[in-house]
């Protein structure tokens, strides 16, 4: 009987596969990414290396010594004091204590401060509280401390915001009106994020992490890239990270361009140069996990996309590897065997600059 190895499905369930089946899954996952992104598949050596990582006997694996990379953190201290909705563990702590725990207890390479809603728009009424928290944290922290939030352009549409919901408009075949609504929302998104970050920078922030960029589609990315551009002009030394929401930018508008490139439908290797052009220092590419596929399929697919992004990017790439992205299973407590294998693969095969 052929030897079988313990792997995972994309939802985290344990499965057993033979080496032949693992190789088959890896090749299929890589081919899927190559087909969608029009990028090269992984070479035979890279596929073999991924198989070797997946078949390692230990529960946890790690990169070879000397290949370590910085691990940046999103969602601020919400993973400590937040509720289950933010994957938080509900430990009542101040945000200062949360930041210091990440620095001194967890060994984080960077950290960020974030609002409980973790979106820029709701920060506006409480920005004085955020600036005060940033100042106190910066006085006590040594590692780079960003302000992190989601552009979350959906908050600008009815019923939460001032502009008519493009989904409702499109259902009524009011395509032009829907596009105009997205353009207005993007303008407000740019204006609000710049306003919030001007105040955070005045309070000593190292910079900003735009988390889940383009979650509301191409107009969300359009607004974010313009915010990056404005902030870069005003704060030449500011640290700016642009992390994406998904592997592809959804074409909700369809005609918006940045630097002469249509934003709708672009993949990680096409997104990275635009983030760099806007003025970001680090780009966070994403590849989504398919819960119905194996971890071998998902990992090869993610590594194929990330390798192409790293090669096309003029700035460092810190791949997004939270729950359900970057080859990580889609559940709140992803198994350590799957996380560490994906982590090692991203560094050693995709060549990412950080996580």
């Amino acid at each position, binding site marked *: 009987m052929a030897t079988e190895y313990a792997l995972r499905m994309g939802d985290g369930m344990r499965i057993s596969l033979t080496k032949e089946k693992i190789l088959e899954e890896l090749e299929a996952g890589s081919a899927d990414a190559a087909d969608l992104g029009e990028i090269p598949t992984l070479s035979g050596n890279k596929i073999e290396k991924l198989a070797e990582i997946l078949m390692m006997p230990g529960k*946890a694996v790690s990169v070879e010594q000397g290949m370590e990379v910085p691990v940046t953190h999103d969602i601020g201290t919400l993973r400590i004091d937040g509720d289950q909705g933010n994957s938080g563990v509900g430990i009542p702590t101040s945000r200062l204590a949360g930041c210091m725990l990440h620095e001194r207890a967890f060994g984080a390479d960077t950290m960020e401060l974030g609002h409980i809603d973790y979106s820029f728009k709701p920060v506006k009424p409480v920005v004085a509280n955020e600036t005060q928290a940033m100042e106190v944290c*910066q*006085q006590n922290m040594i590692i780079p401390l960003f302000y992190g939030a989601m552009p979350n352009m959906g908050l600008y549409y009815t019923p939460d915001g001032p502009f008519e919901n493009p989904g409702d408009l499109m259902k009524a075949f009011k395509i032009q009106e829907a596009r105009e609504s997205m353009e207005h929302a993007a303008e407000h998104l740019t204006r609000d994020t710049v306003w919030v970050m001007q105040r955070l920078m005045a*309070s000593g922030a190292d910079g900003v992490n735009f988390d889940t960029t383009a979650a509301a589609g191409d107009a969300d990315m359009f607004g974010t890239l313009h915010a990056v551009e404005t902030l870069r002009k005003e704060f030449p030394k500011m640290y700016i990270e642009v992390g994406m929401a998904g592997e592809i930018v959804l074409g909700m508008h369809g005609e918006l361009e940045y630097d002469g490139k249509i934003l709708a439908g672009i993949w990680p290797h096409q997104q990275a140069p635009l983030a760099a052009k806007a003025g970001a220092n680090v780009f966070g590419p994403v590849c989504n996990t398919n819960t119905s596929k194996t971890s071998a399929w998902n990992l090869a697919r993610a590594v194929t996309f990330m390798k192409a992004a790293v090669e096309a990017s003029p700035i*460092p790439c810190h791949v997004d590897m939270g729950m359900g992205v970057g080859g990580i299973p889609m559940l709140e407590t992803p198994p350590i065997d799957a996380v560490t294998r994906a982590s090692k693969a991203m560094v050693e095969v995709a060549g*990412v*600059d950080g996580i």
Partner: protein
Amino acid sequence: MPISHIMASGMTGIRAAGDLVARMQFSKNMRIKEAKEYVAKKLGVDTMDLSDEYVMRELREELDIGVITSVPTAAKGIAAKMNIEKLLEIEINSCDLFRRQIA
């Protein structure tokens, strides 16, 4: 999960030299190889040493750039970052703010 990543691939922040390498990536857009070489040169160590707690613990204490345990009289917070600024030849926003506040 973040701790799994740190254990599998991370540079472990101020336990070693992860914060310094990250600062060079963010302040000068350096890719990982260049950032590690830059920091290693400034520290006078090999790039392998940047993730080695045995080397970095003593070196960080000697350079007074912040250590992970609470050492009485050792530089912490802004004080440690001001020493990091000099070491890496970069400017840190919170240190600029602090200088303006005491001017």
